[in-house]
């Protein structure tokens, strides 16, 4: 019971601190915190559009975040979600541009499948290099981000360019993810994301593979001694992570932008890392964290439009929360110290 109270207390303190920082930032921008709170809440809940925007922004974060969380739990530090999202988008573009006649939903499904494979393949490279040669995946996944981005740049100015004008982007793509809440932008990608939350939860908690991944992430040496194929696990974790990020990229492509362009991902691959962390690498946590983060983003955008508060406030608060969580260890240490001193 006491442990529970401590946890709740900590959550309250962290929330309080975050709100305090937010208040300071709002005051610093010369606005009234209460007014901003109102604008913020109205931005999210006040209109159908606002609410839908939250879910639209949450979808890619959820998908990529799920992939990253699988990696983290297996001991594979996937920082390459950004690049994997681009690779997924490239593959989806190629399939979407395929001039074969078929029902839209089949075309979209094929494109998404291609995206999964492309993203998975892009993550396979650092995965196999780690599994077989022990090369750190941190730098490798980072490098591949840049390479994927540049590859996109090359393709949209070349082979995949829209021939009707000179902008660096692909032609408007025919197949698209169906809208599910007209007249908002919300598309089927969000439903897919929810489905994936369930799928990942099922995988990690209810299948032998998921169990193996967790063992490898927790104690690689014991896993080896007990007969688990560690190499296989690392590769699976990396490919699944990349595949989910690939789908995230394709979702943005086929659901929102409908064209392949350079700003398609725009840093959400990195944000997804924080989402995975805030979600404690747990699929339901990732669901909550991605919606939370997206809500923060939408609310902040509204605050920027209406009250002039810089939208950068989102990055500040997210970064701040993660740093707080990292410092959690210190809080725990202090609590331990108090306990020991109390007992003495």
């Amino acid at each position, binding site marked *: 019971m006491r442990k529970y109270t401590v946890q709740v207390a900590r959550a309250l303190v962290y929330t309080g601190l975050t709100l305090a920082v937010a208040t300071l930032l709002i005051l610093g921008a010369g606005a009234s915190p209460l007014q901003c709170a109102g604008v913020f809440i109205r931005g999210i809940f006040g209109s159908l559009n606002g609410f839908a925007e939250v879910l639209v922004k949450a979808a890619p974060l959820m998908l990529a975040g799920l992939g990253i969380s699988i990696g983290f739990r297996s001991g594979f530090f996937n920082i390459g979600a950004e690049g994997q999202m681009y690779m997924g988008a490239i593959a989806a573009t190629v399939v979407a541009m395929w001039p074969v006649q078929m029902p839209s939903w089949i075309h979209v499904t094929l494109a998404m499948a291609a995206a999964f494979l492309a993203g998975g393949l892009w993550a396979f490279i650092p995965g196999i290099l780690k599994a077989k040669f022990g090369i750190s995946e941190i730098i490798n996944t980072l490098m591949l981000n840049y390479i994927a981005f540049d590859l996109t740049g090359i393709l949209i100015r070349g082979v995949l360019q829209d021939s009707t004008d000179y902008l660096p982007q692909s032609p408007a793509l025919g197949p698209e993810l169906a809208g599910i809440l007209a007249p908002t932008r919300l598309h089927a990608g969000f439903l897919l994301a929810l489905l994936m939350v369930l799928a990942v939860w099922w995988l990690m908690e209810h299948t032998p593979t998921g169990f193996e991944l967790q063992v490898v992430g927790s104690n690689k040496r014991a896993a080896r*001694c007990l007969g688990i194929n560690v190499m296989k696990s690392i590769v699976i974790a990396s490919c699944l992570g990349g595949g989910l990020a690939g789908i995230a990229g394709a979702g943005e492509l086929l659901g929102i932008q409908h064209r392949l362009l350079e700003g398609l991902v725009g840093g959400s691959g990195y944000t997804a890392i924080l989402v995975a962390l805030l979600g404690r690498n747990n699929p339901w946590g990732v669901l909550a964290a991605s919606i939370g983060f997206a809500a923060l983003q939408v609310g902040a955008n509204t605050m920027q439009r209406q009250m002039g508060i810089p939208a950068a406030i989102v990055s500040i608060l997210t970064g701040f929360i993660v740093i707080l969580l990292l410092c959690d260890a210190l809080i725990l240490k202090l609590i331990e110290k108090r306990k020991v001193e109390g007992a003495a």
Partner: protein
Amino acid sequence: MELLEMKGIVKAFPGVIANNHVNLSVKAGEIHALLGENGAGKTTLMNILYGLYQADSGSVFWKGEKVHFHSPLDAIAAGIGMVHQHFTLIPTMTVLQNIILGLKEKGYPFIKITEITESIQALAKRYGLAVDVKKRVSELSVGEQQRVEILKALYRGAELLVLDEPTAVLTPQETCEFFEVLRRLKSEGHAVILITHRMAEIMAISDRVTILRDGSDLAVMNTQDTDPASLAKLMIGSELPERPVIEPHKGDAAPLLELKDIVVKKERISRLAISLQVYPGEIVGIAGVDGNGQKELAEVICGILSASQGTIQYDGQDITKATVYQRFRRGIAYISDDRHHDGLVLDMNLRQNLMLRKYKLSPYTKHGCLNRNKMDEFSSSCIGKYQIKPPSPGIKMRLLSGGNQQKAILAREISEEAKLIVACQPTRGLDIGATMQVRSILAEQRNRGAGILLISADLDEILSLSDRIAVLFRGQLMGVLDNGAELKTETIGSMMGGRPLAEGETTYA
């Protein structure tokens, strides 16, 4: 005058008295051997001397004055150097860099390479420790690395050198060269404490020997006044412990496990070269001081290490290339000596740890899906059968006591299908109650018909459980004996100290 005197040293840890009023005295210019089995208290005593531990009571006199070392730096400053079994050298740095590491040499902050090289080489010449200071440590052989460690200590002005099992990693040729170095040290007036269990070496090089057993110092004697047999007797005691009546094993025709000319190499050095058989329904005890190839033996049988030569036959099949998983499925169970790193996932709960071997099998997995109910059933039965406390499957493994953790491992590994059990130091770190439980479980399994390879540094354990006893020394078998009434402790002790069984001494081939 004695250079070093340790008087009445007492050091206790929870559950065990590591040093029980131990006395040790060392003269200048003397090579003093410290002999004892694992757990006799040698390492603890030396750690106290070196300032790594603080004694509970007793005093240390250095050059006639009472001293108290709070850290290794104090000991080093006083003139005591220690070379541990695991070297503290930086592989990517050169010999010179390692030797002056942490020191403020003349010309600080710059390194006057020529001057320092000269002083190191002068030192090296004086003691016969030839070494190329420009080479990286990773390029050196183990023998050469050891020389660097000794130089490092001498460079810091060590008058007394403590060497912990120095020949454990040396080839016989390197050992000879090493003895030369010891003689040089002696002639230059240094004192050396040699922690070892190797009789031949004690006889060859030491002046005096102190024997420790079970935390107490038993005797000090001049080496020339004694012989390996007496030393062996002192090391392990002349009385055999109470041994439960072991049902004589019914001789089966075919061995369950047969290792033929198995060689295991680590870093190009042979750590194990052995041929061995284990029959069903018997316990083969592997005795020997830790570090003589025991871990390699266990791991090569279970598939964690591969042999560079030789074959392993098990239950009629060649399993030399089989994976760890395949071997478990065929009935080889493994109780590792390092339960925290090899045997358990501490951050998972009890139920998950119990399932670590079986989660992929039906009925625990059906159609690709884990069956929680069956897993709960299994863990409940394990908890009940082995009396694991606290009896809650959801408890984090980290929170269980050592004894309960070990019981969980046993519960997981041992089942009807286990035909061969490899148990490595199974009762290490356990209290008396848990120890008795584990031993009776092993005896039970043996009676059930399983073959057990019991690897233990605890000779009492080996003697009380085994049908046959083999001794490992430097990765090789010194001999295999029946655990009968005619068994002499001197024989085992000598084997543990490096003397192979002579012709005619074996009572069972």
